[in-house]
């Protein structure tokens, strides 16, 4: 985060940015993330969360990750509860509005076991956008005057040299790696996504490298037929993993709605006993299964197909 402009550029040039195949397994992709790195997480709340990749990072016993996301849901619980992450940078952190306040988030933050830096949602967007643009900050007009800004020594206020308006300058956030799940991409990492984009495009361009998970890998020819649908260019991408239902139990637009019954079960389990409940959940659902497919099986094929029916039919209306 405190890299100089030239450091940020150098990190990009150190990568092989030619058009080459980069399809790997979840485990191989997890090995690309180092302990202590800053990880940007795509999607928002219950939507297009790169859950399979978060699951793989926890299984790989990552430590001391700093994670950043627009709005954080149960994947934040997992990251805190597993010990993979001790620092979330986000605008909102719970399991989802319908389940009330996350007791896991409360336990870790109130006990001082982990840090939750709060920014406004637009500020998160501006920080990724500044990072994507290669500028050290962007100016904005919210957060001013509130206590949210008083908790954030990272910002600066300025008087606009053009208008005299008071503006808030928020610093660029350039994660070491971004985890992003898309509906389709090619083997090189040219990614196309449907529905809500959230902050993902700025996040992808702000990060030093992107790990893509995708519902399916399509041919480069398919991408090239509609290049104006490509949202992330291959040269930003370090690895591509094909993971059907890679957001479960969260949703993926046009693919599946959230697995609400599983989320109900999950929240009641971990909110009852944030540490013990989470340990039980992680043992059973994250460390236990041999593969992501086995994890999906644990969620239940009937539940999965029901959620998929809802996801596929969302635009039928």
């Amino acid at each position, binding site marked *: 985060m405190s890299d100089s402009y030239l450091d940020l550029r150098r990190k990009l040039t150190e990568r092989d940015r030619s058009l080459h195949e980069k399809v790997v397994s979840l485990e191989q992709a997890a090995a690309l993330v180092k302990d202590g790195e800053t990880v940007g997480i795509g999607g928002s709340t219950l939507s297009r969360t790169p859950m399979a990749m978060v699951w793989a990072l926890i299984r790989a016993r990552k430590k001391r990750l700093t994670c950043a996301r627009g709005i954080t849901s149960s994947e934040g619980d997992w990251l805190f509860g597993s010990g993979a992450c001790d620092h979330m940078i986000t605008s909102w952190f719970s399991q989802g509005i319908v389940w009330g306040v996350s007791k896991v988030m*409360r336990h870790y933050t109130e006990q001082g076991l982990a840090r939750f830096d709060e920014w406004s*949602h637009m500020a998160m967007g501006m920080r990724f956008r500044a990072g994507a643009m290669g500028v050290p900050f962007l100016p904005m*007009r919210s957060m001013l005057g509130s206590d*949210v800004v008083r908790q954030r020594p990272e910002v600066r206020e300025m008087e606009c040299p053009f208008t005299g*308006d008071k503006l*808030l300058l928020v610093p660029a956030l350039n994660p070491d790696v971004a985890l992003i799940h898309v509906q389709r991409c090619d083997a090189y990492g040219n990614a196309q996504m449907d529905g809500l984009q959230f902050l993902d495009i*700025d996040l992808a361009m702000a990060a030093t490298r992107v790990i893509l998970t995708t519902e399916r890998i399509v041919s480069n020819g398919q991408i090239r037929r509609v290049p104006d649908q490509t949202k992330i260019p291959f040269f930003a991408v370090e690895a591509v993993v094909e993971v059907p239902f890679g957001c479960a139990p969260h949703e993926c637009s046009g693919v599946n709605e959230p697995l609400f019954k599983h989320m109900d079960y999950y929240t009641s389990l971990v909110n009852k006993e944030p540490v013990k409940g989470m340990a039980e959940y992680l043992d059973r659902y994250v460390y236990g299964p041999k593969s992501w497919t086995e994890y999906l099986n644990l969620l239940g094929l009937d539940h999965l197909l029901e959620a998929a029916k809802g996801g596929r039919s969302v635009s039928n209306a």
Partner: protein
Amino acid sequence: MSSTAAHYTASELLAVMSSRLLKDGQIVFAGVGIPLLAATLAQGTHCPGLTILFEGGVIGPVIEPGKLPPSTNEQRCTVRANMVLASTDVLLLLQRGYVDIGFMGGAQIDQYGNLNSSFIGDPAHPKTRLPGTGGGNDIASLAQMIVAMKHEKRRFVEEVDFVTSPGFLRGGTSRRDSGLLAGGMYRVVTDLGIFGFDEQTRRMKIVALHDGVSIEQVQDNTGFKLEPARDVEVTKRPTERELEFLRKLDPERLYTA
């Protein structure tokens, strides 16, 4: 008035009263729950040309009865929308000035309309860490606000523990002095009445009371002194049509129980 209209929940009352504050042609940035119900009700009654925006990145969706989205960041929010765009860009519409009304719920509010959704107790050692602002701070910083919330003494406090979403901050010109040039609290809608803010002091005042509610009752449920406006009106009870619309919209009573 029919017997159906005679019975309604506090949440239904909130939704109806809020919906009546909306005007046709407005662009409303709405949260899920009461705000979305109220905005959709307004579209179905007196505001056919009302446009809803969602924080996830949606302009002008159609809300299907029985398929309320669980958050403003979910694919159900995009159904038959006119446009889906990046979250950052929909939030920037607030900053650009395209949004007439920001409309959200509140957990804790103070006499200047500041909202807290971050910390109960001292932020350095909080009793409770709440989920935080989301887009709330941006909406409250950049648009005229309507807030719908239950009227309880612990929620209506003299000074919030933490200003997550700014109302008029410390009153007077303090909001503008902080650099927040536009927007500000317009109305707070509760199950007891409708509240506005004094033009000078920016303190909350009573604008209207719901049928059968007294000023004393409001004051008893408020943690600071509430002045009545010059003419405190009495609101008209929810109509059968309004209640039926709401009940069709939310048949499982997720938000109106």
